[in-house]
């Protein structure tokens, strides 16, 4: 047997002949959003369970992070019964249902015979080859070893998988950053009602203890900023667990990609359906993948919700046996990680993993060998799995609630391209590609300005270079017009045009980009003062100039792409990029908030990427 553990951030390994204090059928590492339901589901199936949790109670972000509501996901499964019981208990004795949920779940697990170790951490894992045999745990001042048949890593950060040596991915390709994190502040109104503020707090590396500590202290200290202050309410506490939206993800037996989601390439044996939009939070879209930007930026479809079937293969680290994951570290790509992370979905993820593990234990087989129909039958019983949970893509909020039908008919496309809500038509054009190009080219010359400009964008999305002069014209005459397909996260048409110029590698647009990035008078344009107030349709606020940021962030990254595709303009392009960020102009024009805040760091991410790009190019 070997013992693997982390020391100083690196995995170490040594031979071991451990003495195990106790054996459990199943060990669940982490009793948060997913792990709590993994433990509960498995215990209900009659297997012996050890749950290990660093907090002093169960529930993770829903309890210690105090995110007590739900954002998307679909109701169903064990969490429904817990929620109902917690609601009844809340009415009797609590202001919110958070403490009730902790109490009910902990009591249920105890009644089912599960052993729970709170304020405890897994410090190492025992393996035979790629088969997990047990863990070492620090709890109540001492280290102990426990053996198991199956282990579920529900730590959210893939902690146990990292120790076990599983292949992991983290962050976006451009700069390695994960989604912004939050601090949650809980207050009471003068009527005694609970109110919660959570604001994005910047970026964090939760695998570096120094940066994690800095991030926690910084985020909670920022609650003093005027923006987040409400003297009418009484703060009752700061949630001790910060809201980290993304971390390491396993390379699974099957990884779900954003391309899969958009194209509907799904597993045929789902355990549950996740449901949400690509809720990516950050504003620096320019640093995301082109797949995501085509969807989120160019087609302005950020708030469209998808059902994503998740199969057991996405919960099994590639090549490993008797090890499952439950939580946001499951096998998805960075883009999809922003969607498959909602609380209800992760409750189901935990429940599914718990059931699969329990059946495997009872049959004496690997989880992957459990017949799908048997798992499905149990999950259907609780409502965790339900065929009706799968729905086609749709807008699903109070601004817009409608199922999406992709368009084929050029006349229908033309009609929608003539509006300020062209998103569905734009993506339909992407799907149709060359089949719609001639129509779009005809409409470029239309007297209907909306149709002409939106056809330019559509042609750009199809990748046809004939759009380039028209795109340049949009950028030259840039304005603050934004599409209105979505609530909040709508994109400027001018910024979309810049993105497309970059994607198409248009060297002729370099002077335009230079003007945007380097001209002293750029910020004097009226467009940058058009949307300064908080607005439900456009994600601006008093301390973040959304219009300016969309334009300059897309311009900077577009220029890096153009340089990459046109070596002949490299020298000129790099000089522009270096000049663009030689002073703090873009920070000052975007936000008045200090370094470290999410707003400031959004600009900083662009600057850092540009500087890194320039360094790499100069080495060539």
């Amino acid at each position, binding site marked *: 047997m070997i013992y693997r553990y982390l020391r100083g951030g690196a995995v*170490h*390994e*040594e031979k071991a002949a451990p003495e195990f204090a106790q054996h459990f059928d199943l060990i669940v590492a982490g009793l948060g959003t997913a792990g709590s339901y993994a433990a509960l589901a498995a215990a209900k199936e009659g297997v012996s369970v050890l749950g290990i949790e660093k907090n002093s109670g169960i529930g993770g972000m829903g309890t210690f992070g105090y995110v007590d509501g739900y954002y998307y996901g679909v109701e169903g499964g064990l969490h429904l019964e817990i929620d109902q019981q917690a609601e009844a208990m809340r009415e009797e004795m609590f202001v919110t249902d958070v403490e009730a949920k902790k*109490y009910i779940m902990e009591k249920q697990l105890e009644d089912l015979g599960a052993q729970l170790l709170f304020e405890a951490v897994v410090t190492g894992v025992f393996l035979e080859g790629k088969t997990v045999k047990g863990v070492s745990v620090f709890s109540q001042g001492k280290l102990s070893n426990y053996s198991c048949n199956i282990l579920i890593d529900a730590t959210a950060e893939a902690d146990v998988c990292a120790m076990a040596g599983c292949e992991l991915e983290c962050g976006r390709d451009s700069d390695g950053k994960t989604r912004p994190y939050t601090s949650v502040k809980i207050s009471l109104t003068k009527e005694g009602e609970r109110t919660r503020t959570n604001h994005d707090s910047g970026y964090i590396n939760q695998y570096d203890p120094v940066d994690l*500590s800095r991030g*926690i202290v910084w985020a909670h200290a920022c609650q003093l900023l005027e923006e987040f202050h409400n003297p009418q309410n009484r703060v009752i506490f700061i949630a001790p667990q910060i809201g980290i939206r993304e971390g390491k993800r396993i390379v699974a037996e099957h990884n779900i990609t954003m391309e899969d989601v958009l194209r509907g390439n799904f597993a045929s044996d789902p355990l549950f359906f996740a449901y949400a939009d690509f809720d990516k939070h950050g504003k620096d879209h320019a640093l995301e993948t082109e797949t995501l930007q085509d969807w989120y930026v160019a087609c302005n479809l950020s708030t469209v919700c998808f059902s994503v079937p998740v199969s057991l293969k996405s919960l099994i680290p590639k090549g490993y046996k008797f090890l499952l994951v439950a939580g946001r570290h499951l096998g998805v790509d960075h883009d999809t990680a922003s969607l498959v992370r909602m609380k209800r979905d992760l409750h189901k993820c935990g429940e599914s993993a718990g059931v699969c593990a329990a059946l495997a234990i009872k049959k004496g087989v690997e989880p992957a060998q459990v017949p799908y129909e048997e798992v499905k039958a149990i999950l259907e019983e609780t409502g965790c799995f339900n065929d009706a949970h799968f729905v086609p893509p749709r807008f699903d909020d109070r601004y817009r609630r409608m199922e999406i039908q992709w368009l084929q008919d050029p006349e229908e496309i033309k009609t929608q391209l003539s509006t300020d809500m062209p998103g569905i038509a734009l993506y339909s054009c992407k799907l149709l590609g060359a089949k719609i190009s001639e129509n779009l080219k005809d409409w470029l010359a239309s007297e209907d300005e909306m149709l002409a400009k939106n056809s330019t964008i559509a042609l750009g999305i199809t990748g046809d270079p004939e759009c380039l002069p028209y795109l340049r014209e949009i950028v030259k005459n840039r304005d603050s017009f934004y599409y209105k397909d979505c609530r909040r996260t709508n994109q400027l048409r001018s910024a979309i045009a810049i993105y497309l110029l970059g994607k198409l590698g248009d060297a002729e647009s370099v002077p335009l980009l230079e003007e945007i990035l380097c001209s002293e008078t750029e910020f004097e344009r009226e467009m940058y003062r058009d949307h300064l107030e908080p607005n439900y349709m456009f994600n601006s606020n008093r301390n973040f100039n959304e219009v300016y940021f969309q334009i300059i962030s897309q311009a900077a990254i577009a220029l890096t792409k153009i340089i990459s595709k046109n070596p002949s303009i490299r020298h000129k392009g790099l000089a522009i990029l270096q000049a663009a960020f030689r002073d703090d102009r873009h920070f000052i024009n975007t936000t008045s908030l200090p370094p470290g805040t999410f707003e400031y760091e959004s600009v900083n991410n662009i600057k850092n990427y540009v500087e890194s790009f320039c360094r790499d190019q100069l080495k060539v």
Partner: protein
Amino acid sequence: MKANRLHEVRVMYYDVVIFDAASVALGIASELKKKRKVLIVNRTSMVAAEFINSYKPGRNWEEEPETDLAKSIAEKLRAERLITERAAHFYAAGPVFYKAYSDLGVDLLLETEILSVEKAGSAFEITIYNCAGFGTVKTPFIIDTTDEGFCQEKSLNCLLVNKDKAAVFPAVSMQGADFFPTHDEIVNSVIMRYHCPPDASLAEARHGLIELWQGRPEVLSDWKIASIGLYFDITPRAVQEVGQTKCIIPASSYDNPLAAVDAGVKVGRRLADDL
């Protein structure tokens, strides 16, 4: 990788290591950092938890702090109306203390367990565990501000709220609990202390508190639990040891966090000269 790589990982050296990011630790570190390299290691993500996350009512907050650091914190608490003539709401002071720690300029490791402390020659070798795994810290001097080993009495406290602003908390007695008015000008609230055995875990105490409140007298039915502490309200034994290599100062020994900061600053000044 072979096990012997264990010894190749960098060891961190500090002049002083402080256990727990308590209020008193803030004061100590603020002085020691001027002359010494200081590390604070804290098991949880909470700072000054002995007052903030314990819902400890505190005493004598009207007394003017003596040190500049405590005065500046008091000023912020007054500006936030967390200290008034009638009341102090230290449980709401989290952002103020996080800001103080953010401004401190001392190395801080939150969510870090101390696995062992062993004497190695003239220094201590401390094994820690956090998100990077095992780590080793060496130091000639430890300041231990943790409470649990010195607990004489403890309670788990919660904040009770009545939506009726005019409702008066009735004069009731409940075995195992007592109540403190908060005199809050915004919310009608009371702090309940649920007394528990010194060896009770937070989860056990929380369950006991909830079950006690489930069986509360009818007259209290409109009082709801808004929040339960994540740290015990501890009355430590009267312990304060300042030795040649180790100093023990339980964080909960003080009347309120400002007094703790004051005391910490004084200890820090003394140690900065003595070490």
